[in-house]
């Protein structure tokens, strides 16, 4: 239990209101911290970008960025590294959100990196394009000369991420030098970098999964439908529920497709995200389900099950 899920702390609804005004002390301290970090990015960097996956964490980031600069528009674009294996619902949601908020969206495709021969498609039972994203991301950073990339990673997600800074410096090759990170004192953020370096910024570092869900509930933020219970064609493998889509996800003949009522707790590619059995069809039931859950969020990430150090290895190579 993290954020108070009581009604909004303020009764006035618009900046023009003249009603009884309250103080800001009830605002979630994590929200204050995230807004502060996002403003530091806009102030300290020349070409920031917000990495947008269409998942709940990056959707939360968009709301926080709106809050940070209102009534001005978000002063940087969003960028989606599209693996081509996303859930269609996520892509539709992404396009709708960008249109509604009048944001600039850059899309770069992993398929292009494959066509250019820069990366090779994995094969076999566990083939996924998840780790291929890194090359496409690093190329896009170079193409647009981005000096700061804002991402929705959280320290509670995974052990290697628990060691991550809020401003995390990457070298020309996008690499994370985990043993040589800058100390971060008080809330002072040092964004000074050399030409060619860039900084990965994690404004919701200190949020937990439950914090994000509670915030989405409190703020009434729209999220893609796959986060809620729905009927889906699925099959079982290694005790996990896989979404069946024969174009994207490899499936053995003896892996039987069956309709199940499921939802997704974390949304990556279809090939690396497992579903969970769930009846939670609205945000309140999802929050309750997370509260009661005994399994971690990344327990449903097939990509993390490759080895104990799977995430650390990917991060060193420039993965988000």
């Amino acid at each position: 239990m993290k954020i108070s899920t009581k009604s909004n702390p303020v009764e006035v609804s618009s900046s023009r209101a003249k009603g009884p005004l309250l103080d800001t002390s009830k605002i979630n301290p994590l929200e204050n911290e995230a807004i502060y970090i996002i403003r530091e990015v806009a102030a300290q960097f020349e070409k920031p970008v917000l990495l947008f996956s269409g998942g709940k964490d990056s959707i939360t980031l968009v709301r926080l960025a709106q809050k940070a600069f209102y009534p001005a528009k978000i002063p940087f674009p969003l960028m989606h590294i599209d693996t081509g294996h996303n859930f269609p619902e996520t892509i539709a949601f992404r396009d709708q959100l960008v249109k509604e908020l009048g944001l600039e969206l850059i899309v770069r495709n992993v398929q292009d990196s494959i066509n250019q021969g820069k990366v090779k498609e994995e094969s076999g039972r566990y083939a996924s394009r998840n780790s291929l994203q890194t090359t496409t991301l690093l190329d896009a950073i170079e193409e647009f000369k981005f000096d700061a990339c804002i991402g929705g990673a959280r320290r509670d997600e995974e052990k290697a991420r628990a060691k991550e800074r809020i401003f995390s410096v990457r070298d020309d090759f996008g690499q994370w030098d985990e043993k040589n990170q800058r100390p971060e004192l008080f809330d002072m953020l040092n964004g000074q970098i050399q030409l060619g370096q860039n900084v990965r910024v994690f404004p919701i570092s200190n949020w937990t999964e439950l914090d994000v869900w509670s915030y989405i509930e409190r703020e009434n933020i729209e999220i893609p439908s796959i986060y809620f219970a729905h009927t889906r064609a699925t099959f079982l493998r290694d005790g996990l529920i896989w979404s069946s889509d024969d174009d994207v996800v490899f499936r053995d003949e003896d892996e039987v497709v069956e309709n199940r009522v499921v939802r997704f707790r974390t949304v990556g590619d279809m090939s690396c995200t497992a579903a969970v059995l769930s009846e939670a069809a609205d945000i309140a039931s999802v929050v309750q389900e997370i509260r009661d859950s005994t399994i971690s969020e990344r327990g449903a990430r097939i990509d993390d099950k490759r080895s104990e150090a799977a995430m650390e290895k990917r991060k060193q190579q420039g993965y988000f």
Partner: protein
Amino acid sequence: MEVLKIATAGSVDDGKSTLIGRILYDTKSLTSDKLDAIKKTSKQKGYDYLDFSLATDGLVAEREQGITIDVAHIYFSTQTKSYIIADTPGHVEYTRNMVTGASTSQAAIILIDARKGVIEQTNRHFFINNLLRVKDVIVAINKMDLVDFSEEIYNKIKADFKKLMDKRDYQEQNITFIPVSALKGDNVVHKSKHTPWYKGQTLLEHFEQLDTEDIYNIGTPRFPIQYVIRPKTEEFHDFRGYAGKVYGGQLSVGDEVVALPSQTKSKIKEIFVYDQAYQTASRRSSVTITLEDDINVSRGDMLVKIDDLPAIERQFTATISWMDSQNLVTGNKYVLQHGVNKVLAKVDTIHHKIHPDYSGIEENIQALGMNDIASVTFKLNKPIFYDPFKNHRTNGSFILIDSQSNNTVGAGFIQ
């Protein structure tokens, strides 16, 4: 819900990671997949018990060497509070990591191995938590199971530690002693059956009853401008908002303020968070402020109340914690970041080195190396607007940045 940040300090093998793992386990914060992974690995390694340190040591090198290298952040929550634990390693670059962890924490746990008692490392851990003015310190006397839960040993360690407390600079710091066994779970979350002589709270009970408002540093309001918001749209044609975070105290609509360094006076017209207007901006909140008058204010400037000015100086003396392998030498220039403001700073005089174990000071110092703590005077190219660290934890601290490497090379606490 309030968030409480706790820093941990202990020497190698004092059982810090085990303590954190124990807290997670006993508060049922370890999810079943993580617990399974711990069980599996503990069994593989042939241990008789669950190695909870596996819950926190995240890097390959850490697991290989069985040590913690870098500050890790661990999260859990109870019905009343959200907790963030900064697990700071106790050996290489220990000062740097501990200063970093303590700088964002309101509470700290200092671990002592009951078999070893107060050792030189303990002095250092206490010194740094006191220097950083961490308000609430728990001295957890660990591995009580290995000394038969002896009250005598506990009292001896407590008495030894109290001798250190007489030497501390920040006397108001709250200090609490708790006998624990992280491995067996005594007095961590649950009360121990083995320590009937101990009438105090468990570690978690202590944190649960802390008033988080009270342990945050309270001072006078300071509002450093982070970013100027100018929408330049039809609807908000003339809007000019100053975005930033309120430190120390609160600011309200109608307050008379002065902008530094220009010393221009004005009044707070409106306070916004997103599209909501507020009467009062509490400390630690990120807001946007508009003023009655159109004055020239930009990033790095500061709004303060008219009758409550900070020091505005181009020279000051600070206690420095040096964090870089390249030495700090008299005459060196650094970028000094004070909050969101940046100026150039030149090392004028190194007065003396302070041994962080309460063994005294060392004079005639020419250079500072990694982990050194010293009293240093700086000269700046432009004035900064500061309060002494003892009055204002945020407005009295700064970092030093090497303009060649761009690394953060030191932290300072203004005297």
